[in-house]
């Protein structure tokens, strides 16, 4: 097991659970902070000469959106995408467009399909990640004035493989998020 097993209910994790509730700032802030920290993965020990890391911040956004459809408002792509643009190296605006469009696309997917499951979420996530990586590379190609070759292949493969792991991490964070820490 890569991630530790936690009890299914967040309230089983804490000793005092009578008169306690999740703290609102923490339960809304943790998803946002986790996505923003994932945007800052560029400040990581890996100094790469090729795009090798999957877009973790985008994957976190998708995972949170799939796990808790009503947690992130539909307009959240605008601020979070702008924050990601500051670190990603993409021309500023590319994240804003793609993340906003992703939130709208997820609304459409939710409206279209009556049932959801692991495989369907994985497929939807893979399709969105493929579109995201391809369009990002296209925007970067505009910026350099040089058609970028298909460098996204290995990156996309890695993203698709790692996506269930990211959803798993997000569900772990979700239990932390709902810890009853505040006295009512």
């Amino acid at each position, binding site marked *: 097991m890569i991630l530790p097993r936690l009890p299914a209910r967040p309230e089983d994790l804490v000793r005092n659970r009578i008169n306690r509730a999740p703290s609102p700032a923490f339960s809304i802030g943790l998803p946002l902070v986790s996505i923003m920290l994932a945007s*800052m*993965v*560029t*400040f*990581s*020990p*890996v*100094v*790469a*000469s*090729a*795009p090798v890391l*999957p*877009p*973790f911040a985008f994957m976190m956004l998708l995972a949170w959106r799939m796990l808790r*459809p*009503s947690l992130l*408002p*539909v*307009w959240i*792509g*605008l601020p979070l995408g702008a*924050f990601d*643009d*500051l*670190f*990603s*190296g*993409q*021309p*500023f*605006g*590319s*994240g*804003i*467009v793609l*993340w*906003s469009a992703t939130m*709208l696309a997820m*609304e459409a997917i*939710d409206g279209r399909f*009556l*049932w*959801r*499951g*692991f495989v369907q979420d994985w497929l939807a996530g893979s399709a969105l990640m493929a579109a995201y990586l391809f369009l*990002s*590379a296209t*925007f*970067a*190609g505009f*910026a*350099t*004035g*040089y058609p*970028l*070759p298909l*460098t*996204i292949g290995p*990156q996309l493969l890695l993203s698709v493989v790692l996506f269930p792991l990211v959803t798993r991490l997000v569900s772990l964070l979700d239990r932390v998020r709902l810890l009853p820490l505040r006295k009512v």
Partner: protein
Amino acid sequence: MVMARSQDRRPGFSRRAQYGIFTGYVVAIAGVVAGLALLVVSLVNPGAFSFARATAAEVARPMGQAGAQTRVAGQSVFSVIAGYLNSGRQNALLNREVAVARANAITMRAVQDENLRLKALLGIRDPAIMPVATTRLIGSTSASARRFAVLNSGSSQGVRQGQPVRSATGLIGRVVETSPNTARVLLVTDPDNVVPVRRAGDGLAAFVQGGSNGRIEIRLINSGTNPIHKGDVFVTSGSGGIYPPNIPVAVATAPHHDGAEGHLASDPADADFVVVMPVFQATAVSALDASQKAAPPAPEDETP
């Protein structure tokens, strides 16, 4: 596990909830439109949002510093373990190499002396190049197709836009944006970075352009027959005025009809410390810029 989709987006009869959802959609669509506008602005003028990126880099700097130290520590752990495993074989090999290198060094000193005397005869004086800063790479755009890295020194250490950056083994790139304590480096592997080079053996002129996938493209200036062989080393030529001459850039790996594919002489991932150098011929660079701005647009080919 298959489950029904969540129902909590349905507002019911509450006007307030209905308006809230409607506003959300409006803002999201406005986000797409605003993003497209910003994208166009930053494509036309790449430096437009550099102030925001610089601020962000300053904020994230402590994180990058910690990361850079971990990277160095992690590498040294592996190299220590590997060192124990091959120490005997490596010792014999190194002894042999040192003997050869010692002989080479003596020859080199003689050549250097001769070079100095000849230069004195011709009256050429090379200015000594003092590094601007010696610093660490604390981040890179490892998920984007653009290749940037972030330096742990900025304008308060004297780092300026356009300055070349090298490691002990070769060229890394050049500075494109600075903030007080960080600087953004355009790596050699970015397609936007074109470096004039020559072959180390005979001075065959070419230029190197990044392919964004970690490989680089070596293109010859005089096309025709391709004299590049596998293993040829290319160093900066100094033309253009930005990069000082004789910094290793690339090694050719796969020659093709009008050039070769190559790999970098210096992988930024291995570079512990990097050196920021002053612009080689600042007057030449500014003169070139001025002439490009003053020149009329290039004549268009008349195609029948």
